[in-house]
Each structure stands twice: as structure tokens, then as C-alpha cells.
């Protein structure tokens, strides 16, 4: 290669270790409270770390599984000895994390496996979106690998947004496919304050100079994603919860396994800010024998302030898509946004019957909307993938029901209140059943030449 290799390693000294208190508070709120759904974090490999031997504070999330995990949320400020580089060059800019909406594109730039083979791995790039945020605790679906702890995550404009706190995480031993970040502005603010207390005013001033000016209060939820995205709702049905999508003021679509027909009442919590929860009842759910895992909820009151999505009529393999759902966190911090592409459109008799995407989809996302880049509703998510022989879950291979399958029944219901056409979802052809059982579509029998 003609490209120059990395510089030789330079000696550095530690100035301080700092953690962001607001990050830790957000962490405790999101990950520390539910002992039933053990969150685990690791930087050592793709397998979930073994559970702790004894119960620990914070539901095991702070378990001592190596130095990187013991210090989750702690960052080190170093000073390279001698002059790092005389040339000034472009100045690093820092973007306030609160200014980024969910779904904003991000670029992570880190070194997988740390100091292992930097001439090959230094500054490896990974693209994703801001999936969720709880104060300075951010989540991204950019794929980050062990060794990228501490890596910078940048906005499309090139401003530093966050540093990677934990590249891999699991919930209930299921790989979530999101990386945990700490907002750079909050971290630098904490570091500058600490340096001032430690008697290093020059470095404190330098850090403070990197900080962006104070911004007004955070922007409204999900503005960049298009108004349609606020149609995602949390559906609670007894002890079960999942996601859904509002299609009309009193109409919500979700999955049968989230809101089965026997359910008397369900509570629908909109994602839109300042929207109140609304009770509803399941007016239709497909039979257990149907491959289409769908339920229709009729609400007792109108949902307000939600622009309802336009239904897609066509699907384009390879197009940019995103899933909005309450997977992983429930109502703890609003819906998560994960990005990817439409990886497959499976058709039977020239009609789409199944969509697959590369978005990260977790338990709790079922029923959530799958949107195109233009904000059209492509389908509703029903499942991700599990290998029963190994128990491994693959969040980046998931299945959705195309909205074109549901559209005729939805249209009739919206116009007349008649649910009759939904019954057709219980009577799909055998080829559709075969597809959803992940079996091969049988070839047409050979025609007789007689």
C-alpha cells in the first residue's frame, strides 16, 4: 500500500480519570432496575459474558468482567509527552448530543481489537444512526467491535458527538446489536470541571474551548425522521408489551402475540411527546394457525397530534429502511430507531408476502413499523431470527408483514368499520405458510405433456 502507516506509539501520561454523573444516572435508570432482564456488557467477544456468581448491585450490569467493564462510564484524559504535532490543522468540533434527533446519521471511527495490528485496523469506520438517548447516554446501531471502547462517534457534519462506552450488549442473553455511547459534550464538561478542581486550569480552559455554546432546550422528539415516525406506539397487554403503529385516530396495528384476541383491554402509549395513553380493545387477531401475526386494536379515544403514515405500494430491495420500536427498553426512554436496508422481498405469485431487513430488531419491537427512507409504512415487524440449535439470536435478520397484505382489509375497515376482510389473513395459501415456516417454496408440479 502507498498509504502511510500509523506513527510510532508516543508515550503519554495520565491527567485524570473522569466519569459523567448524568451518564451513570441514565445507565442506572435504563439498565439497573430490572433484574429479570439481565443486561450484560462486554468488549471481549461475540458471546454474552457469563452471569455473575453472586447477585450484585445494579443487576449485574457493573459486573467485574475485565478492566473495560469495571470502568464502564469512566474515561481517561491523557497528555502525549512532548509535542504531539505542531501543525494546527482543522480544529475538532463537538456537537451537543441533545441537538441530534433520534435517527440522525452517525459515523463511529475506532480501532477494533485496540492496539492489535493498528496498521490494519486503526480508524475503522462504521455507520449507523442515533437509536435512542437518555440524557448523555446514547445508543447507536453502528456496528462497534471489541477494542473500540473510547472511539469517537461523529455527526455527518464531522462534529464529535460521543465516545463509545461499551460496544456490545445483551439483554437476557440475547445480543441487542446496539452500542452504548457517552455524549462528548457532557464528558468534556465533566473533565474540564475536574481539571479545574485538580489545579490544571490551562488544560481545563482548553477542554472548555472545545465545548459548543449552551443550547436552548432539546428539540422535539424524532423531527428528522419525518412526522410519520411518531406513529409508533407502545402496546401493553397485561404483563406483555410490544410495539405497534397508529394508522388512524382510533386504529392501531400490532402483532397477535403482543395483543391476542382474548385480551380484553390493551393500553396504547404514543411515542409523540405530550400524548396521553389511550385504552383500547382487540377487535381482530389472526388465528394461531395463520402465518400472518397481526392484531387490530380499536381505541376508546382519539390519538392526538399524530400524523398517520402513508402506506407503501411498492418495495425495492436494497432501499434504506428503518424500524421504530420499543424493543429492549419499553417505555423507559421512548422508541428506538434502527437503520438498515430492505434485504429481501419474498413473493408468492408476484405478490410480496414477507419483508426482510438488516435493521437491528430486538424483543419488544414486534408490531413496530418498518418505514422507507421517505417515511412510507412498508410493513410491521413480527420477529427476528434465532438458531434453535445454538440459541443464538440474530437481530439483523428479521421479518415483517408487507403492508400491501394488510391494505385491502385496513381500507375496508377504515371506510365501513367492517372487519370481514381481515378474515382473509387466516386463509393464506399453502405457499405463504411455507414461506413463513422458513421452508422452501415448492416448485409447481410438472405439467403433463399429454
Amino acid at each position, binding site marked *: 500500500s502507498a498509504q502511510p502507516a500509523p506513527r510510532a506509539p508516543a508515550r503519554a501520561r495520565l491527567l485524570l480519570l473522569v466519569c459523567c454523573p448524568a451518564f451513570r444516572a441514565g445507565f442506572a435508570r435504563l439498565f439497573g432496575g430490572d433484574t429479570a432482564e439481565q443486561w450484560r456488557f462486554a468488549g471481549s467477544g461475540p458471546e454474552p459474558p457469563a452471569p455473575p456468581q453472586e447477585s450484585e448491585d445494579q443487576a449485574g450490569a457493573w459486573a467485574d468482567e475485565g478492566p473495560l467493564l469495571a470502568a464502564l462510564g*469512566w474515561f481517561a484524559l491523557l497528555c502525549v509527552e512532548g509535542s504531539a504535532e505542531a501543525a494546527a490543522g482543522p480544529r475538532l468540533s463537538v456537537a451537543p448530543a441533545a441537538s441530534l434527533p433520534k435517527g440522525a446519521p452517525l459515523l463511529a471511527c475506532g480501532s477494533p481489537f485496540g492496539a*492489535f495490528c493498528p496498521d490494519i485496523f486503526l480508524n475503522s469506520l462504521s455507520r449507523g444512526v442515533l437509536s435512542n438517548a437518555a440524557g448523555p447516554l446514547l445508543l447507536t446501531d453502528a456496528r462497534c467491535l471489541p477494542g473500540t471502547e473510547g472511539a469517537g462517534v461523529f455527526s455527518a457534519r464531522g462534529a464529535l458527538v460521543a465516545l463509545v462506552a461499551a460496544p456490545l450488549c445483551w439483554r437476557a442473553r440475547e445480543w441487542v446489536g446496539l452500542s452504548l455511547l457517552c455524549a462528548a459534550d457532557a464528558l468534556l464538561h465533566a473533565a474540564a470541571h475536574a481539571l479545574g478542581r485538580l489545579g490544571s486550569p490551562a488544560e481545563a480552559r482548553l477542554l472548555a474551548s472545545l465545548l459548543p455554546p449552551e443550547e436552548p432546550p432539546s428539540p422535539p422528539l424524532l423531527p428528522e425522521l419525518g412526522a410519520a415516525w411518531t406513529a409508533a406506539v407502545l402496546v401493553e397487554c397485561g404483563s406483555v408489551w410490544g410495539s405497534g403503529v397508529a394508522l388512524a385516530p382510533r386504529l392501531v396495528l400490532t402483532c397477535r402475540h403482543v395483543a391476542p384476541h382474548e385480551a380484553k383491554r390493551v393500553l396504547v402509549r404514543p411515542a409523540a411527546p405530550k400524548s396521553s395513553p389511550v385504552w383500547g380493545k382487540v377487535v381482530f387477531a389472526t388465528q394461531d394457525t395463520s402465518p400472518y401475526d397481526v392484531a387490530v386494536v380499536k381505541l376508546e379515544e382519539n390519538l392526538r397530534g399524530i400524523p398517520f403514515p402513508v402506506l407503501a405500494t411498492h418495495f425495492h430491495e436494497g432501499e434504506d429502511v428503518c424500524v421504530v420500536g420499543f424493543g429492549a427498553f419499553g417505555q423507559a426512554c421512548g422508541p428506538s430507531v434502527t437503520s438498515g436496508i430492505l434485504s429481501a422481498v419474498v413473493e408468492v405469485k408476484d405478490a410480496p408476502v414477507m419483508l426482510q431487513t438488516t435493521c437491528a430488531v430486538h424483543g419488544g419491537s414486534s408490531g413496530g413499523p418498518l418505514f422507507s427512507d421517505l417515511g412510507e409504512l412498508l410493513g410491521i415487524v413480527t420477529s427476528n431470527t434465532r438458531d434453535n440449535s445454538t440459541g443464538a439470536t440474530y437481530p439483523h435478520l428479521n421479518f415483517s408483514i408487507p403492508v400491501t397484505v394488510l391494505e385491502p382489509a385496513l381500507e375496508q375497515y377504515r371506510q365501513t368499520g367492517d372487519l370481514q376482510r381481515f378474515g382473509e389473513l387466516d386463509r393464506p395459501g399453502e405457499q405463504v405458510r411455507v414461506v413463513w415456516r422458513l421452508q422452501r417454496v415448492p416448485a409447481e408440479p410438472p405439467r403433463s405433456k399429454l
Partner: protein
Amino acid sequence: MGRRWGLALAAGERAGCVVSARGAERPGAEAEGPWSCSGVLLSRSAGLVLCHGGIVAPFLRAGAGVLQPGAGPSFLGAESCRDDLRLHVQWGPGRGAGAGARAGPRGALCTPPC
């Protein structure tokens, strides 16, 4: 990746670095570490680098327990780590196996044929 990401690419390449920590060799004892992670070069002229704190946790005089939530302050000075801590920072430019690529053991990572 393309024009849309040009600014982010440039910023990442310029700020990205890798940090390693190890204990100084002592007579009769193997050196601790190395531990390593990624980092961000905040200021090239001042040589300020921010990285994950975990790589220095094994060198804390009071043990990594001081990092647990509620265990102490939200920052620790340099004196909280042992004197034998040795830190190194490596940064770009560049990708690809250049002239500076060092021969030697590559640890446990390999490239199995798919």
C-alpha cells in the same frame, strides 16, 4: 459513504487513535498488560487524548472498586494510579499495511476462510 460523509470521515481519521497501557517491567516479574482501546485526539497541538478509562483500571492503587457507582468521587487524579503505569498513544494517518507494519505475533485473532 461519499461526499455526504466527507467531513465526518476527515474528522474521524484526524482524531482517531489507539491507546495502550502496561506496567513497567520489574525484576523477577512479568509486566502487566497490555490493555488497549480506541481514543480521540482532542487537540493535536496540546496532545490531549480522551479514551476509555478501563485500560488504566488495573493500575489503580485502591483497586477497580473505586470506580463502582457510589464508591467515590466522579474523577480521580493521576496519583490514583501506580507509578509503573506506562501509556502509549498511536494515531494516523493511514490504513493498509504500510512500511511501518511490524512483524511479530498476532495474538489470537486470525482470518479463517469462509
